[in-house]
């Protein structure tokens, strides 16, 4: 019977597509002025697939289209062309919001509410019962560590505290997918470390995370994969280790070698026509990578990354 024949196909396809939480298909956003004339091409034909359980980083300098991408995925912006799919559904679908958490670039919260009122407000938007709300608010205040300021109006909060309450707000519904726009911006090194640890903890709970940053060090040790955007174009895409490793340079670093052994190695290198600098695979610094990309963009405009 045909239905029986088809069934295995569906079963095979389902886990594969179920694994993809976010998908963009040549997603493009052109901002227009009042008269409808194109002003900025903020994002150009972006193709991305983000899989369940990974931490995905959007990396790029200011104005490269990171926030635009996230807003398109949330339905805050409508694509000029292409598609943004979240959980396999159009990004403008309200129902997806049940399973999503979002921390905007700056924490856009009501300044006249205190931490508890803020979380209570957002919890109500998820239609949570009072008992659930109370428990959840307590948990999150502990998690982000703002117990001491729970009854203070947000207008009195420091930047770091604002980020924390913003994150708590994003986690109120225990979301499967968390979109964090520049989660570490404005945080001091300790705050940044804490934020990153929290992100790793969330990943360990099986959540999918999409985060953006213009600081490479902030993404490189948490993200499984990163995409590098520049002027709305996807320039690089892949695992952090792959992207930052300079493949044609090899560095060795050893301990406890005798001068004789060192000489021997030096001789081997010399025999192969090399010169020993330092023995390791170096990683690029933030500036180097960006500068390379910018140089590359100018040399070969329109070059695009291949999905790896």
């Amino acid at each position, binding site marked *: 019977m045909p239905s029986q024949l088809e069934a295995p196909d569906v079963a095979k396809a389902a886990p594969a597509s179920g694994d993809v939480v976010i998908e963009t298909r040549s997603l493009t956003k052109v901002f227009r002025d009042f008269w409808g004339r194109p002003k900025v091409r903020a994002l150009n034909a972006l193709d991305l697939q983000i899989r369940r359980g990974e931490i995905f980083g959007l990396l790029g300098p200011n104005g490269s289209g990171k926030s635009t991408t996230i807003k398109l995925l949330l339905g805050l912006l409508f694509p000029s062309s292409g598609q943004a799919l979240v959980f396999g559904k159009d990004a403008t679908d309200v129902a997806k919001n049940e399973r999503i958490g979002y921390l905007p670039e700056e924490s856009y919260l*009501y300044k006249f509410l205190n931490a508890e009122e803020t979380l209570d*407000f957002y919890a109500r*938007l998820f239609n949570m019962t009072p008992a659930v709300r109370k428990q959840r608010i307590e948990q999150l205040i502990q998690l982000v560590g703002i117990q001491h300021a729970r009854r203070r109006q947000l207008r009195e909060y420091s930047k770091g505290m604002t980020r924390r309450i913003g994150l708590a707000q994003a986690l109120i519904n225990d979301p499967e997918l968390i979109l964090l726009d520049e989660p570490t911006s404005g945080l001091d090194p300790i705050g940044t470390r804490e934020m990153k640890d929290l992100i790793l903890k969330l990943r360990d709970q099986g959540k999918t995370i999409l985060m953006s940053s213009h600081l490479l060090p902030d993404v490189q040790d948490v993200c499984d994969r990163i995409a590098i955007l520049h002027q709305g174009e996807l320039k690089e895409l892949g695992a952090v280790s792959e992207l930052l490793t300079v493949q044609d340079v090899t560095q060795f670093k050893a301990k406890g070698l005798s001068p004789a052994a060192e000489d021997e190695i030096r001789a081997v290198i010399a025999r192969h026509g090399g010169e020993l600098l330092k023995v390791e695979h170096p990683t690029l610094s933030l500036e180097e990578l960006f500068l390379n990309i910018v140089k590359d963009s100018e040399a070969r405009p329109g070059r695009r990354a291949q999905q790896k």
Partner: protein
Amino acid sequence: MPFEHHIIEYWEWMLPNLSEVRLLDARSWSNIGFLMGASGVLLLLAFLFPFLWFLIAVIKHGPSEGFYLVAKSIYGGITEDLPGFSFRRTYAIAKVAVQEAIRNRVLVGFAVFVLLMLFAGLFLDVENSNRAKSYISFVLWATNCLVMLMAVILSAFSIPNDIKSKTIYTVVTKPIRAGEIVLGRVIGFSAVGSVMLLMMGLISYVFVVRGLSHTHVLKADSFATKADPTGKREGVTSRDAHHRHRVIMDKSGNITTGETESEHGHFHRIESEGEGANRTYKVGAARGDLIARSPIFGKLRRLDPAGNPSEGINVGDEWTYRTFIEGGNNRSAAIWTFSNVTPERYPEGLPLEMNLSVFRTFKGVIARGVMGEITLRNVNPDAKVKSSPPITFESREYVAHRFPIDRKLKIGKNPDGTDLTMDIFEDLVHEGKIEVSIRCIEHSQYFGIAQPDVYLRPSDSFFFVNFAKGYLSIWLQMVLVTCFGVMFSTFLSGPVAMMATWCAIGLGFFGGLARDVLTNLVTGGGPIESGIRILQQKNTSSDLDVYLPLELAIKYSDKAMLVVVEGLTYILPNYGNFDTSQFVANGYDVYPDLVGQQLTMAVVYALSASIAAYFFLKTREIAG
């Protein structure tokens, strides 16, 4: 000028009376009724809007995708957003709206109100023949202005501010529906407005009652020393609150009526103690100024001097609301037909009250009113008793004039010398109906008459209830304005949304006015014809004097334009219908049918604006 208003029964207002509607006669269009007029136009918009939206979507996305987009939004609204509606989410939005309003210092508005009341006490306390009226008009006006101002500002800036501060990003990325955001805002701001209105209402009530409260001093030596031929003596009270009252004492020194004469729309009760020169009088509180007459109105028809049905004479300086009947020896009369006239409802007879205005073509006897006569008539042409004998009365101007008619009317003498009487209910009422015919009997004088001028006043309702009804009207306006403000704020920036809301209110007023002008069109023609007349400097009675087909074309395009304008006036609520301050101030009950009309209008327009707001918000690009 007595206070003017059209009495329209609820169903008469609501339902179309199509047999009365003629396409080419603008005056007949008011018969189209609210149901077909407003609901019809709104329904039309409900189809027109998606169509325009579709056209825009086609330009952007092409026909098939455009159709899909529009259809999905509407279908999704009905199948997902409506059943998914959550009161808890709506409440959360409403609560934040209230907190935001309080933070934005709405209480300043309240402080302004209190200050206004304090100053008002000073400048309202002047010589005025009807202080109650000016006090009540003032408080209602002040409340209305402040509450509307507050509603417009709160609602028009709310969503734009959220978009500007981007707080809306964290809200709309939650599973909240656009409808819940709109409704939450409307409920929140209305709640703030309601509390303000309640407080203002209480303060106003106390202000009016305290402001009008006064008494007078009456002493034994305030009376004239000489009695008039009937033995009565006249006295006056002390002058307080810019007036005195006359008091009449009978032969034995008692105050016959137990009351002062009426002055400035009120009177006082008087109690006396002691005898002769030691007699002291206690004058009570003012009465009769804070009232709410609940009149029973009749249907009016008019007879011209030849006794034929007519529209009455237009004396030129009057709005056609009021027409005039000529006095003297002719048959012109105004006839009111009252229904449900039963002895149970009117045990004492007919509690008639009149508010006629008088138009004198010569001075006549200026010291007294123009004389008129009332005849009660049987509606049944075959009845044994066709009418009562005429009862003459002296008209009074500018005041409601009570003229109760006893149940038993003396119509002559029996042979044995006893009075021959007729009973209104037995002899003149037919199937609960009776006609009251009023004529002016002085030659060349005229009575101005309108339907609400003559009515039965069996009992009054409570003033404070009527006062509350006045506030209910303001409340409904506030809710409506909030809905419109929120609607505009879903797609306009704050200041522009505020302007748009003011315009909507202004056009609402103007629309009602325009409709009245349209439906009362007498001569002059529509906009094109009027334009030509102005250019040619021709008055409305001369011919247009252009090529005939052209004239016809002008006339028909004028008509078409008027039909469109008439339709457009229904897009916005007729705010004129919400102005009940004159009822309250003039001491007339805001009649239940009017309350019903207001409620209906408020519900229909609030709902329409909210639904529109829902679609605007749902389909807009929040971060765009």
